[in-house]
């Protein structure tokens, strides 16, 4: 029986395992050094905040693995010997595979800052980071202030986490506005406001120079690059992005760049070795995507895809229309299609913001063809299926506005804003779009 070994028990590896099991009777082993069981990494924050216990982040009960004959091995792979198809573990033992899937995810970036390995400095990625945070920042007596370096999704989540325990937070963001490499200015500004409204000491256009140690090798303060200011703190969160977690592969014959290089079939240069998820790097970005996509959803899709290939139905990784989501403190964010931080040559934008300043939508469309390109929505939930269909059928921006009521996914009784949105669009664009009433027939067609 063919033995499929998967390194990494995150969403990519586990999805692959589940689908291989559905499609075949192969022997499956998942290897992880992090935890015994699969858990949702995106939910770690809720454990620290006291919304959930760690066990709640585990999507499957413990019997699930045995029932589905998926073997779990705890161990740290230190070397892959592709010739003999052998994994060597740091613990000294080995494991033979017939096919190997590398799904080791990411690790937090460290840019060689002075003091980056002190006690009390951590990322927020692994379960071990959570344990460290619990140790160094259990409350605002032990941790009088925390400094977060890096203004991305994990950074703002870490800020929310610490804030939930009333720990003062200084948030150093290199950019001139939060996440403005991804978000257009309007949305970015809205999130700046949200961060400040939660009492976070947000420092834009600010870089870390170094982290200062106390006499015990623990964080004492950080020094700001631009001003030389010293900020006393007990914890430093390094959240300046992530990169593929592939150090153990570097001296194998598997080709790597920043990540494990894969073709469209998620195959590496070595036969029977595949890579999926955050650690996989495409030779060229697919569609307009990046070569490395460190996103939950893409990890899952790669897992779904590679399982087909491994089970004899060799298919390309061909993700559909881009979508993503996040939550910035109390503001939910969803995006469908592309809305770049800066409009491109052929693009026009439509922006609507609610007067409370916590809700907005931003639509991107082609100014020549009026084709819909993408939407950012903040504080209003929208239907994935609606926009997926719109993008597939290449509908126009006018169509989207006309049928915007079908797109709404907010809970029942919520105030609807479509009328207001369409009105603004009509005024700005001299159009006469009439909002259609929501129709179950269309929604569920």
């Amino acid at each position, binding site marked *: 029986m063919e033995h499929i070994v998967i390194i990494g028990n995150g*969403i990519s590896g586990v999805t692959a395992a589940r689908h291989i099991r*559905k499609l075949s009777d192969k022997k499956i082993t998942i290897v992880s050094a992090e935890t015994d069981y699969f858990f*949702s990494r*995106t*939910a770690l924050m*809720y*454990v620290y*905040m*006291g*919304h*959930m*216990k760690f066990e*709640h*982040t*585990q*999507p499957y*009960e413990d019997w699930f693995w045995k029932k589905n004959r998926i073997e779990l091995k705890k161990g740290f792979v230190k070397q892959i010997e592709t010739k003999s198809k052998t994994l060597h573990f740091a613990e000294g033992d080995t494991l033979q595979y017939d096919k190997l899937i590398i799904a080791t995810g990411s690790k937090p970036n460290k840019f060689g800052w002075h003091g980056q390995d002190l006690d009390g400095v951590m990322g927020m990625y692994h379960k071990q980071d959570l344990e460290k945070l619990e140790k160094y920042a259990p409350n605002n007596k032990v941790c009088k202030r925390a400094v977060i370096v890096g203004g991305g999704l994990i950074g703002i989540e870490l800020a929310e986490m610490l804030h*939930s*325990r009333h720990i003062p937070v200084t948030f150093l963001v290199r950019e001139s506005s939060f996440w403005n490499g991804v978000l257009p200015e309007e949305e970015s500004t809205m999130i700046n406001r949200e961060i400040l*409204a*939660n009492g976070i000491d947000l420092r834009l256009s600010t870089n870390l120079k170094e982290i200062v140690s106390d006499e015990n090798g623990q964080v004492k303060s950080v020094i700001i690059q631009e001003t030389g200011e010293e900020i006393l703190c007990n914890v430093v969160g390094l959240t300046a992005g992530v990169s593929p977690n592939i150090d153990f592969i570097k001296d194998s014959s598997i080709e790597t760049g920043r990540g494990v290089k894969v073709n469209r079939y998620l195959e590496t240069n070595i036969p029977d070795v595949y890579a999926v998820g955050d650690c996989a790097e495409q030779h060229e970005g697919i569609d307009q995507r990046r070569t490395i996509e460190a996103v*939950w*959803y893409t990890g*899952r*899709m790669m897992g*779904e*895809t590679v399982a*087909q290939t491994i089970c004899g*139905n060799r*298919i390309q*990784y*061909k*993700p*559909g*229309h881009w*979508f993503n*989501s*996040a*939550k910035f*403190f*109390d503001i*939910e964010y*969803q995006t469908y299609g592309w809305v770049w931080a800066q409009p491109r040559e052929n693009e026009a934008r439509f922006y609507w913001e609610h007067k409370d300043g916590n809700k907005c939508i931003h639509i991107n469309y082609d100014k020549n063809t009026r084709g819909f390109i993408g939407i950012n929505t903040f504080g209003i*939930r929208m*239907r*994935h*299926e609606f926009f*997926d269909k719109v993008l*597939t059928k290449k509908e126009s921006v006018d169509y989207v506005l006309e049928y915007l009521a079908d797109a709404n*996914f*907010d*809970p*029942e*009784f*919520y*105030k609807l804003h479509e009328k207001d949105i369409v009105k603004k669009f009509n005024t700005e664009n001299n159009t006469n779009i009439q909002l259609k009433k929501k129709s*179950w*027939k269309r*929604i*569920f067609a």
Partner: protein
Amino acid sequence: MKIIKQLGLVLFLIGLGIFTGTLFTGSFSLSEAEFDEFITSKNYKSEIIKEELKKATVTEEDLNIFEFSSRVRNAYETSNNHYDTLIAKYDAEKNWDKKGEQYQYKIYGKPHTLSYEIAKKAGSGFVKKHGGLLWWFTFGLAIIGALLFILPNIILLGRPGIKHNGIYHEASTNRGWIAWLVLVYLVVFYLLLYFMADYVVNWTYILDPISKFLNGGPASQWFVYGFLYCVIMLVMAARMYIKYRHNKYQIIRTTSVLFFQIVFAFLIPEIMTSLNMPGYDFKNAFPLDYDFFFEWNLDSLRDSGAIGLFILVWGIILTLIIVPVMVYFFGKRWYCSWVCGCGGLAETLGDPYRQHSDKSLNAWKLERWLIHSVLMFSLVMTLVTLYCYFSGDEAFLGIKSQWIKDTYSFLIGAWFAGVIGTGFYPIFGNRVWCRFGCPLAAYLGLVQRFKSRFRITTNGGQCISCGNCSTYCEQGIDVRAYAQKGENIVRSSCVGCGICSAVCPRGVLKLENGPEKGRINPTDILLGNDVDLMDLVNQK
């Protein structure tokens, strides 16, 4: 703000302390005249009970309720023992005539009930005399204290949004010592209420003035329960309004359960009683209202003229037509989390404990066995009762009508719905009864599962498997198991509280009523991936 909160907590505890303390106060005895009046009203034939009860209750001694209760119950027992001995004796002598004669002297009913009836008349003391004043020192203090504890959350919780911070760090909400204390208090409360009402007779004095105002008569232990129920729901609804002030679905739903509890379950029956009608809760549908078809209720309705007939017809229409039709259009939520009293308490008092429901597959299996067994139990009981009612027999299919009614009332009505259902909130979550026991929920669930427009829609491929939805599902549904497969949630047990949708950080879940077609949509490959792959796998 924190100081206000702490002050509130102290006031609440003082109020609760005095409330509990009143149970140990008062002096219980009857005058000769009161005693005679009581005995006449009872029509006892036994001389022994008269004599024994008189010894027990007509006294100069300063008896508290526990001593008083014990004496009354002794008298009850002595009398019955006496006749039991005679019965045994004549039985041995095969003197059937004499034996048969003795039964008329026996007294029936629960000793604690007899004790309660006498104690209600026999009490004297500060509480009875100053019921109104005591109301302020018990209910008044506790309400003000609780509100002072709750209202500062408008500021302390921060900006509107889901603020479950610290739920798993607190002893009260993480099965710590506070939770266990609350459990013990609630369980003892229910045991006293259901089985030893005489012990809480002092509470009825506190509410006598309000009861007299509402229905003209003194308060019973059920009045105390109903009033307390409303007060608790009101106060805890204030908490819900603050916690979910960003979520209109929760606000409206909370208002709805509050309205139905106060108006339908409490005020209307009280007013009906004062008008000499049978007090009826018009929203309480059979088989949750399990004694609707009991002889005493049917007799009472029959004797109440037009209104009685109306109630009878309404009760039948409610169960057979209104309930399933509404479930078809809106899901069982219209009843369970918008109208029902049990649901109302669960959604207010129980909300802090919702995360404790068991999400395991085994719990789901247990749930299906238990709840459908209770449904069968209630139907068999009703069948037997109705058959016996119309035929005049004592039993049907070998099941004695009285026995099955008593057994159901005791096991399901008192223990399951009350003691376990509510008493265990802090440890097993707030919907134990609704999930495992309620026969009406089982019935609604069957309709919801097989013939309804209701579902929780999963928003394409947006789920990140975080588990907030499952954690906060009070019905123990593993919501995430569906959402992470891109599959809608269609489950008989879902009461549509809407919290899964509220706590989802990615906007994945929406409660909605739509066409039946495509309501159940199992998928293997989620939206967002290769369309050809989706077609290939999902359409297999």
